[in-house]
């Protein structure tokens, strides 16, 4: 089992529904967010190109946050999901420094928090909150080890990228381009 998220940048309209859904589902404190929308504009007027991305923790296969954690609070569970155990986290900030995506933050209660791929929903057979609410259905979630899963099929058929592949983190969030 290798969970992955595939996000179609051609279908995303940047409505931030995923952000609000996550904040509601996971009780994210006000002023913080586990996912966010990045708008990237390239080119010279009038030849501009716009890319909208819903970003979050990439649940990297080679996760620097897990490697640098001095207590083992940051860990990888079955399915490749990177999680933080609040009661093992000392709030040293090493994992935040180590993340090339700035996906982690210090929760006001002190421990480090981030996207969990909504693993509490996955256990019940539901999709992550962000995926389930997307009004343009631009987000897909599934198992990369299953060649027939929607995510595997999409990655086979469409051109895609990951963020900062040069960081060597092997992200599990893919963007269709």
């Amino acid at each position, binding site marked *: 089992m290798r969970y992955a998220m595939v996000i179609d940048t051609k279908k995303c309209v*940047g409505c*931030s529904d995923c*952000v609000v859904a996550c904040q509601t589902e996971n009780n994210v404190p006000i*002023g*913080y*967010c586990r*996912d*966010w*929308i*990045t*708008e*990237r*504009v*390239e*080119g*010279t*007027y009038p030849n501009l190109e716009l890319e*909208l991305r819903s970003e979050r923790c990439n649940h990297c296969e080679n996760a*620097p946050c897990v*490697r*640098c*954690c*001095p*207590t*083992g*609070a940051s860990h990888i569970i079955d399915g490749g999901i990177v999680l933080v155990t*609040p*009661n*093992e*986290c*000392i*709030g*040293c*900030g*090493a994992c*935040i*420094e*180590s*993340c*090339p995506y*700035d996906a982690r*933050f*210090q929760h006001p*209660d*002190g*421990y480090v928090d981030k996207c969990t791929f909504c693993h509490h929903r996955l256990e019940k057979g539901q999709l992550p909150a962000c995926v389930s609410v997307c009004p343009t259905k631009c987000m897909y979630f599934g198992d990369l080890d299953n060649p027939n899963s929607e995510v595997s099929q999409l990655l086979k058929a469409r051109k895609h990228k990951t*963020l*900062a592949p*040069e*960081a*060597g983190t092997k992200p599990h969030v893919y963007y269709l381009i």
Partner: protein
Amino acid sequence: MEEELFTSGRNIPNIDPSLQIWHWPISVYLFLGGLAAGLLFFAALSTVLKKEDETPATVKYAIIVAPIALVLGLMALFYDLTHKIFFWQLYTTVRIESPMSWGAWVLLFITPLSMLWVFSYWKDIFPKMDLRLSFLEKFRLFLAKNRMKMAYVLIPLSIILGIYTGILLSAFNARPLWNNAILGPLFLVSGLSTAAATIILFSKSHSERSLFSKIDVGLIIIELALIVHMIMGYWAGSEVQLEAMELLVNGEFTVMFFVFVIILGLLLPGLLEIMELRGYKVPVVVPAILILIGGLVFRFVMVEAGQLTRYLY
């Protein structure tokens, strides 16, 4: 033209617009840890080489700074934790991959060891203060007898402590300014240099002062060479490393780096020490204090500037 912006109104404290996770206590700790490592290394080395009588300040007096620096450094580290009540989780596991875990374990052993070392010289440091309780005096004599063993343990521990202060930063691939292999040796040499400066401040014997002036001039030359290597490494690197270099040589931290670290912290004190060794009358306090300030500013520059650098995507 290229533009990137958050549209979901992301503005997480200490992360947006730029990382501010590690604050001044970390810089102060990296300085104090390096200083203590250097002091313990020199004291242990002098003992192993049986040169205690020629270097009294190294083994007995300047070394008092080491436990004080370690305790203050640990307090600074603790202060910067945000989930403080769980700090003991550091000692429930050994994580070989995590430099911070290495540091936590080394500090657990080296801090009490530095206190025991100072205690073993109690009679020399405080000749008028008697250890009234006989078992304390017995314990002191036991420590004094085993000083050589402590020295053999302290040499590797102090080197690990000194290098780890640099590796702590260089292990972060996500921060291009930190992510170079030279930072470990560079922080070690800088720590040894600040320790030599502290010994010069404490020493009353001319021969010990001039010995450590010589050592310090050598360390300054090595440190400058390592800094040149570090800059060359960025220069030969990718775009993110070039941007990191810009911060030091042509950006926000250039004045701090060149004026306070390179010129006032290394070149000038090095020159003054050479002049002093050549027989010119230079108050030794001046280069020693310049080196200590330079070492502290260097840690601040690296910690603050490093957090501004990141991957582009």
